[in-house]
């Protein structure tokens, strides 16, 4: 690839208010079937909290002074942030792009392809807010929230959601078919699910893996922020996580839009 080509992948897209028209389309579809959409984020954390929190947790010593169930509660919120946006902008966006030809239909109107993709990314972030808020409510119902800072979780969900949406969209731009998403699923999402300080502290990992997790597993930073806010333990490491997410997100946001444009407009 030539330098100019690489540079073109990071060109700032021209976006207008029309991004919201795309977002609104996805939102309208979501609301049509809201009952089905609300169930998984409601039930899943209940299963996890009961099975792992109560069940497994009774064999586990407190971690960093926290009972096990309290330790994993913020992780469940973070995982819902990751899952909802990542799957929305891989499988969801791919179906709309490839099978339903929804993007083709929209770009025949005054909306540009850049705005279509940006709308999809914002919708992915919105799904993260919706899911994580439901999980947050479940966690609260279990009596696991001890600090008013939890009110900032939707903000973390938006930032984290936008980050995972953008990363997902890069995979979508590379996907020759829908089965392709098994790769990022197993090679990216599953390791993050398990190794990002979710179900045990990062410090239990060998040192090089701790470094790896902090450098390359974005979920690590989302978990860090969620846990800090829910427990009310504001350490300087949270600032690092925030900076990490705030740096990576715009890069992937711009990259994914340009890569999708290249895929769709020959």
């Amino acid at each position, binding site marked *: 690839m030539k330098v100019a080509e690489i540079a073109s992948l990071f060109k700032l897209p021209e976006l207008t208010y029309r991004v919201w028209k795309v977002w609104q*389309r996805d939102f309208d*579809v979501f609301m049509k079937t809201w009952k089905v959409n609300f169930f998984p984020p409601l039930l899943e954390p209940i299963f996890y909290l009961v099975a792992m929190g109560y069940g497994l947790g009774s064999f586990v010593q407190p971690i960093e002074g926290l009972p096990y169930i309290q330790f994993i509660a913020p992780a469940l919120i973070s995982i819902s942030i990751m899952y909802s946006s990542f799957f929305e902008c891989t499988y969801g966006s791919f179906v709309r792009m490839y099978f339903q030809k*929804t993007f*083709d239909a929209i770009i*025949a109107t005054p909306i540009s392809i850049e705005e279509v993709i940006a709308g999809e990314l914002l919708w992915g972030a919105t799904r993260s807010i919706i899911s994580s808020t439901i999980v947050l409510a479940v966690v609260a119902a279990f009596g696991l929230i001890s600090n008013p800072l939890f009110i900032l979780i939707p903000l973390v969900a938006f930032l984290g959601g936008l980050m995972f949406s953008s990363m997902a969209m890069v995979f979508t731009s590379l996907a020759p078919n829908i089965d392709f998403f098994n790769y990022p699923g197993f090679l990216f999402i599953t390791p993050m699910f398990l190794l990002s300080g979710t179900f045990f502290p990062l410090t239990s990992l060998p040192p090089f893996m701790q470094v790896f997790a902090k450098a390359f597993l974005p979920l690590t930073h989302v978990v860090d922020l969620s846990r800090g806010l829910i427990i009310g333990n504001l350490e300087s490491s949270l600032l690092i996580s925030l900076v990490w997410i705030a740096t990576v997100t715009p890069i992937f946001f711009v990259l994914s839009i340009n890569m999708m444009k290249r895929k769709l407009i020959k």
Partner: protein
Amino acid sequence: MAGSEVLINAESLTKKYGDFVAVDNIGFQVYKGECCGFLGPNGAGKTTAIKTIHCVLPLTSGKLTVAGMNVSEKPREIKKMIGVTPQEDNLDPDFSVITNLLVYARYFDIQKAEALKRAEALLKFFQLEGKKDVIIDELSTGMKRRLILARALVNEPKILLLDEPTTGLDPQARHLIWDKIRDLRKQGVTIILTTHYMDEAAELCDRTLIMDNGKIIEEGKPSELVKKHIGEEVLEVDYDEKVMKTLQEEFPEARLEVLGDRIRVFTIQPHGVFETFLRDFPSKGATIRNANLEDVFLKLTGRQLKE
């Protein structure tokens, strides 16, 4: 009626995909108020040309203006005044019939009340009122085509791009769509139509451009093209060597085409020569028919399959 004001102007328009040249240095004009047909075999470049007009495909080189605006500079303004029916169905399967129109109207910044008014009127115009709340999957192919056409009109376009609007439809649905297209033309909408059906082009188009291998190889009024390339009548008879010889002697200037077990005779001689011929040489399976656009098309683009 079609005027002489140029609405769409293409100069040296070229579109390449890698090494493949889909549209090869073409120039054409579309006049305000006319129905202009783009004809050509599969892969001729019709759809590509259409897509450059509504600004979804960037040009490789050349210049294309719509209503005086350059497609690479003013895509939004151009798209605002265009309605498109794509070849492939891209209705939104997540929504009902009416919501498809309303959501589409929203993409054009049309206010909700106005959108609802237009959507109701369009559903009526296309005889879809009864299907208003039906989900897209439950529509027949014909209804889907009608809804796509309705959707293309939601922004009250000045230009309509119809990419194979009747492919796969039964005759009833086809004629209904033809009626609507004629209505729209009367209302002054400029229409660009691609089709594989020559009867459709002859029926609807004021003017046709015939494309092959990315180039425009002929253009003109359907009736004039027929007259110019084929003549008035075509004689078809069953193949027989003796008949063939007689035909060659009788019509030395004619083009004889043998296809399967039939001979077709194309001559530019006036109406009635075949009748006289048949009176003297009654031949087996002889029919005289009017020359048509399909004859022109096959003559110009050849009979071999293109893909």
